[in-house]
């Protein structure tokens, strides 16, 4: 009997392994199923990918005749795809750069059209008993940045009574979240890294909850997540400059320094389907989704269509 089993083994192992290997990688973007429906290809910013996904899912119930296909990859990837004509709408968490616009014009002959669809604003949170009121971007950089020197609350000039050890417990996000990237860019610039040793949590809400239960903590998260257990700090662009609290107005008039608009770009005027989709995005339902996914919705007024 044992002799027979030995004969079985090799082909069985090979068969299982080969079978699994053949089905583990399916080619991306299966075109077959959606060929009958018009699709809106939507790619770009990783920061916006959850939002775009949520929109696409909701839109499927609004207009089932169109399917919206969303992928991430980063703002640059989205713009490149727009220039090559492989996507209809590119998500971008920054403004398109002049040379990108130039390139798009020469390739497709059409000037990319910019649509602001929402805002991303990060609030800086402390425990509700923390006496600190304002902080500047430089101070934040000197707390969060690699090689930073500020490690205690007294260095910021406050006596944090709830925190006997005086240590600033830095609360951050896991290294591939869009929030992490944006905060790093806003505070430390494009080159500098975060200092290691922060508590890297896995969700915007988790950050606020941990700060709310930890008197020594300092954290950042979307401004929509504030709870009674935490306070948000007013942020000044420079030490000594006036500081602004994170509010929707301050975000919209650009005085709050850790905020940015979220863009969607189309090559020239959007196609009929894309136009309808963008109009829906400016509407109340979609803007509500902006709020629930942790971003700042557009100011409440009739849809402006496009910006100049």
């Amino acid at each position, binding site marked *: 009997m044992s002799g027979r089993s030995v004969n079985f083994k090799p082909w069985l192992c090979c068969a*299982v392994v080969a079978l699994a290997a053949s089905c583990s990688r399916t080619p991306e973007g299966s075109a077959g199923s959606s060929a009958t429906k018009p699709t809106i290809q939507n790619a770009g910013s990783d920061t916006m990918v959850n939002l775009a996904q949520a929109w696409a899912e909701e839109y499927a119930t609004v207009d089932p005749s169109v399917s919206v296909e969303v992928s991430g990859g980063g703002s640059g990837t989205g713009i490149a795809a727009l220039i090559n004509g492989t996507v209809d709408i590119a998500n971008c968490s920054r403004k398109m750069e002049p040379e990108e616009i130039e390139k798009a014009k020469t390739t497709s002959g059409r000037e990319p059209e910019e649509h602001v669809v929402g805002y991303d604003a990060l609030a800086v949170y402390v425990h509700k008993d923390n006496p600190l009121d304002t902080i500047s971007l430089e101070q934040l950089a000197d707390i969060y940045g690699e090689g930073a020197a500020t490690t205690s609350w007294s260095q910021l000039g406050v006596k944090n009574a709830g925190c006997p*050890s005086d240590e600033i417990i830095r609360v951050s996000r896991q290294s*591939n979240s869009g929030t992490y990237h944006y905060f790093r860019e806003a505070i430390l610039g494009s*080159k500098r890294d975060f200092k290691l*040793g922060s*508590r890297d949590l896995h969700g915007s809400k988790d950050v606020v909850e941990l700060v709310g*239960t930890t008197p020594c903590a300092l954290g950042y998260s979307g401004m929509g997540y504030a709870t009674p257990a935490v306070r948000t700090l007013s942020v000044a662009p420079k030490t000594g400059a006036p500081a602004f609290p994170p509010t929707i107005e301050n975000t919209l008039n650009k005085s709050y320094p850790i905020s940015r608009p979220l863009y969607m770009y189309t090559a020239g005027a959007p196609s009929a389907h894309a136009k309808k989709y963008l109009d829906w995005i400016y509407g109340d339902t979609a803007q509500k989704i902006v709020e629930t996914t942790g971003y700042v919705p557009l100011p409440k007024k009739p849809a402006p269509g496009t910006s100049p």
Partner: protein
Amino acid sequence: MKTRRLFDSVTERLIEWVIWLCGVSAIVFVFAIFFFVFREGWGYLFSGLNLREFLFSVEWYPTSVSHKRYGVLALLAGTTAVTVTAMTIAVPFGLGAAIFISEFCGPKVREAIKIVIELLAAIPSVVWGFIGLMVMHPLIVRVFHAPIGLTVLNGGIILALMSVPIIVSIGEDSLRAVPDSYREAASALGATRWQLIYRVLLPAARNGLLAAVLLGVGRAVGETMAVLMATGHTLQIPKGLLDSARTLTATIAAELGEAPVGSEHYQVLFIIGILLFIITFLVNLAADFVVKGIRR
């Protein structure tokens, strides 16, 4: 009669084959899993990864713009610290409970305790993580005046609670598997109950007890969700029980979902998977040698 015999021999062979398949499937699955984890990581493992930096640097910057660095020393230290803490708590409690259940209590108490312990094993790890985050964290802050309660101690206690049920049930089984004649002989020779346990039962059941402890270690090393929530997920080498830490498993759980497929970061996360494989393999191997050493 003849067809009957033919039928019998066919079903006999069929059943033999099915049972053989069941037995072999475990091996096939282990190798298949190893193969896939290895395949996802090996491209970068053999070309590009600086193995010295990987193993001996604490700098884990997988998404840095200017300078990506993949050092897992802090993660290794975190896994070690949390596991050691958990085992320091779980082994005495688990083995003590196993001895109590198998040797000291009556059948009714035994059943009651066993049911409760099995209930403990049935609690999902997310719930444990939640307890770590919402109950243990404020408690540790209050009791130890620590700046934060998401620490090695927190993760260790949670993991200890998770591995105690395994240690107890397997330890108890192996103690009960010791023949009663051993107990009777020891008693007849005038051994006290303590002597009976210490000199007769523990040596007789050592393989099973070691297996119980190692399964507990396996659980502690491999646990993900609870430690992700309870340890603070902090990239540093913990200097004490009240420091936060980050484990290998938690890093994979937190980062794999958003790492672009096939990127360096993605492959490095799979290399961490290979590292975890090697660690558990070494633990099991060491256990095998220890058991064989004791036998001799």
